């Protein structure tokens, strides 16, 4: 017997508590946490960098004052404060897309055929008109009133988004109902 075959047999003898824990380990949980942490860090950085622009009176007031210190006849310095409202209006404009964007994040609804029924989820084949991946994993945590499903069943699924993994994976699944 080759040495690697002895290893293969030895791995079969790994203690069952370790095996069981590995089967239950959810790699996605950590990925999800890291993704949100990354997003939160980016938002925090963006907020920090845009702070001077979001404080119109402070931001526009400081520059003129600093120039005013350098030049005594500072009549034109009255102009920058009048520019401040322009800055304000710019702030409103830049503030508008955010709510607009969140309104645009509509839920994803499509019909699919169940390919596999797993312990914590489904593997489904979306209808071609859904315009998403050929096979999609559907986690079931958080889905209320889940109907009894079997391979071949038709279902209508409501979710927040699709992750571009292989196979693709839904996030924020809120509803699964029998279709047709």
């Amino acid at each position: 017997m080759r040495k690697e075959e002895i290893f293969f047999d030895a791995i079969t003898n790994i203690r069952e508590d370790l095996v069981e824990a590995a089967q239950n380990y959810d790699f996605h949980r950590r990925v999800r946490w890291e993704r949100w942490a990354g997003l939160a860090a980016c938002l925090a950085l963006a907020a920090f960098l845009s702070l001077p622009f979001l404080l119109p009176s402070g931001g526009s007031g400081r520059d003129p004052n600093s120039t005013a210190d350098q030049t005594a006849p500072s009549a034109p310095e009255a102009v920058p404060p009048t520019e401040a409202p322009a800055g304000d209006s710019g702030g409103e404009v830049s503030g508008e897309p955010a709510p607009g964007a969140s309104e645009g994040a509509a839920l994803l609804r499509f019909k699919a055929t169940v390919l596999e029924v797993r312990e914590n989820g489904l593997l489904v084949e979306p209808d071609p008109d859904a315009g998403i991946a050929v096979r999609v994993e559907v986690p079931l945590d958080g889905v209320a009133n889940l109907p009894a499903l079997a391979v071949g069943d038709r279902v209508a699924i409501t979710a927040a988004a699709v992750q571009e993994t292989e196979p693709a994976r839904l996030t924020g699944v809120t509803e699964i109902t029998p279709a047709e």
Partner: protein
Amino acid sequence: MEDIQIIELYWMRDEAAIRETDVKYGTFCHRVAMNILHSFQDSEECVSDTYGRCWDTMPPQRPGSLRAYLGTIIRNLSISRYRSAHAQKRFGGAEVLLSELTDCVPSPESVQRTVEAVELGELISRWLEGLPEEDRALFIRRYWNGDAVKILAGELGARPNAVTKRLLRLREALRKNLEEQGVCV
């Protein structure tokens, strides 16, 4: 149905035990066998044999984890089938796993004692205990379940290349650990 209830059915000699085992762990068993054999028909037969072995061994056995118990049986049956049927051929399933496991074999210079599979299993278990939870799960899912790197990469949200490198580091760490203990296979 909970594992304990299924095991109770085996002990009561109720054939529903096999049906319930198939409902709960059928997919898991198929996947483990397929990862080794890469043949649907062979895997199907191994799964049936596994249920038969469960029926024969419970009682007296009362496993703590039914999934691990089934997995051990189906791995042993699949490996035996693989060896007897494909002894001289190279196949994608077990052969790929075996080629990767070559990295774990300690170098001959460090030989102090030779161990058998059972003792080596215990040494690997102890090494696994010292790993971060995710590395431990990754190693077991790859080499115990035989899950493809691509699938694991999908679950981790990483690229397959990154997972391959991570697995290589784990195999090298295992080899180093065994060499430090003066172990050879």
